[in-house]
């Protein structure tokens, strides 16, 4: 990148006593981008957002917005519009007063306040509700007021803290789309926090997966799904079987129970590793096929769940593997518990991690 990013978070750290809630987080956000911080609860994503908003003082690090360090500024000087998980609407003010609160703090002329109020309420389709109080609105409407209030100040960065978590499941998708539309239309740079993977996948331009205060991986949905940098990412995004074993040969992976899997790629490394395989990227394979199966398993359980059949497979000598076989394929044979079968997968769907959880790349393919 030749140009400095719009928002750069540099070495951001927050220490609470003995625990480090946010540990040396570095992020670059380009103008107009929606970056979604994703992770299990307690991973530090919300603290990161609160550090950016200024509600929490950073222990170390810088928050550079257009090159200026915001880390030491109080929240009321940061020009960042936040949508809170609880919406945090002012209960004693009407919708219109809520939306114009930030404009009045900026002492804008009345005509400008009125103009922006009208414009923002129209954006979130709440013009008819201007004189209502928050308690008179539904959850979805309250959420839109919270969004309108943050948009009205034309923030430099829009911050969204679990914006959909308090909504009914059937509302979530449409609200997610609405937020995304408004953000794109306004060309707003946004930082969103969620623990919900689907939500993150739908809303994000890029994802930041966090765990234990650290950034695990930054990238597009596809990058995180197809090329996870460590087992945590592989397991958290989508789902992965994590099989522990040992590289005994360039393409032989021995499980603790003795079973040996034939890997799709060749590796120079040896010793203990973790093999990550997505259930939907492993196939059942019969011995009569042209390619020999990569491993042999016993079917322990098979559950028809609609789009696919959930197989729970066991390696001889111990260890399990989940496999999703798409339904509807012509000529597929259902396996029944107790049956033994072969499994196989393609090289691109095989991820190997070493003892330090670092992804191991395959050795360059030899002419074979």
């Amino acid at each position, binding site marked *: 990148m030749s140009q400095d990013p719009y928002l750069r978070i540099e070495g951001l750290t927050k220490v609470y006593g003995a625990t480090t809630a946010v540990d040396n987080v570095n992020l670059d956000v380009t103008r107009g981008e929606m970056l979604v911080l994703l992770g299990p609860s307690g991973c530090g994503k919300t603290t990161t957002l609160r550090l950016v*908003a*200024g*509600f929490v003082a950073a222990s170390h690090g810088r928050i550079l917005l257009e090159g200026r360090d915001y880390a030491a500024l*109080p*929240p*009321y*000087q*940061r*020009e*960042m*519009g*936040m949508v*809170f*998980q*609880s919406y*945090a*609407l*002012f*209960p*004693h003010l009407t919708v219109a007063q809520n939306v114009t*609160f*930030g404009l009045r*703090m*900026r002492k804008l002329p009345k005509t400008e306040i009125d103009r922006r109020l009208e414009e923002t309420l129209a954006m979130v389709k709440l013009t008819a509700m201007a004189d209502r109080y928050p308690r008179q609105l539904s959850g979805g409407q309250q959420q839109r007021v919270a969004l309108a*209030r*943050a948009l009205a*100040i034309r923030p430099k960065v829009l911050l969204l803290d679990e914006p959909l978590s308090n909504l009914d499941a059937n509302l979530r998708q449409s609200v997610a789309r609405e937020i995304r539309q408004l953000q794109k239309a306004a060309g707003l740079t946004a930082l969103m926090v969620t623990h919900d993977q689907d939500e993150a996948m739908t809303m994000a331009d890029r994802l930041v997966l966090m765990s234990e205060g650290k950034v695990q991986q930054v990238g597009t949905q596809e990058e995180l799904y197809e090329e996870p940098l460590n087992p945590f990412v592989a397991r958290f995004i989508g789902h992965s079987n994590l099989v522990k074993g040992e590289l005994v040969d360039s393409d032989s992976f021995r499980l603790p129970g003795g079973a040996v899997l034939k890997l799709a790629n060749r590796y120079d490394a040896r010793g203990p590793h973790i093999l990550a395989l997505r259930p939907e990227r492993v196939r059942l394979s019969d011995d009569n096929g042209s390619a020999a199966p990569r491993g042999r398993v016993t079917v322990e359980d098979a559950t028809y769940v609609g789009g696919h059949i959930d197989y729970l497979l066991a390696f001889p000598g111990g260890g399990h593997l989940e496999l999703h076989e798409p339904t509807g394929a012509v000529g597929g044979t259902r396996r029944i518990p107790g049956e033994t079968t072969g499994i196989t997968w393609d090289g691109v769907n095989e991820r190997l991690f070493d003892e330090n959880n670092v992804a191991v790349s395959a050795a360059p393919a030899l002419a074979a």
Partner: protein
Amino acid sequence: MANAIQSATPSTRGAWLSKLVVTVLITAGVVLMIVPLLMTAYMSLFADGVVTFPPSGYTLSWYGRLAEFPKFGQSLGTSLRVAFTATLLSLLIGVPASIALVRYRFIGRGLLNVLLLSPLTVPGVVIGLGLYVLMVDIEIRSEIPLIGSDWVLVLAHLLITTPWVVRLCVANLVQLDRSIEEAAANLGAPPARVLWSVTLPMMRQGIVAAALFAFIVSFENIELTLFLISPGMITFPISVLQYLEYRFDPLVASVVVVQTAVIALLLLAIDRYVKLSKVV
């Protein structure tokens, strides 16, 4: 179907029984509270000069003789004045103190918390006696008459009204969503503005409840006040007490009815602005 009906019957009976118990308890509570009041009102109508039962007849004449009650105007005036001032001052002390206690972490916070609530744990008579000795001591040294002045009474009442204000405001504050104040800051409001435009308006119910309690606690106080009055200046409950030491006629009952009515009107007036059922 038959099963459904059978299983429904015992649960219906259970619900009916628990409803009965609740109704009985509520009725008992209401009766306990209202009977003394009704008895007082009833006595104020007795025609006899000394309260006897059954009365020989009924009259409203005691209400016409309210002015005969010694120091009726003076004592009621003093009580209302002192209660009003003590309420106002304890709000000025207690509301900021409770905000500080709940919203900020500072050295001596625990101590302040204990200090603000401790007067509630000491018997009023003890505080009253202590204050009396202190005031006499100051009077002797400074030659300024203190006992019997409104201000000494107000100061003394602050000791018991402020803990109530702090307690009610703290209870109110802890249940307010902190992120609402953060939202205000996020939208550009500096701390003082957040306090004024968001925190205080949101505390309205707590503040009203606190004011109400402070007022009543001050107005009805006897044990602390007893030490700090002078013959020329007494409070209303003390005038009633003093009257009862010599006489027991329906006049005192009618005086109490009038006083109760004044407080009730005050509550009704407040209820127009803040629903009291919500705050207390």
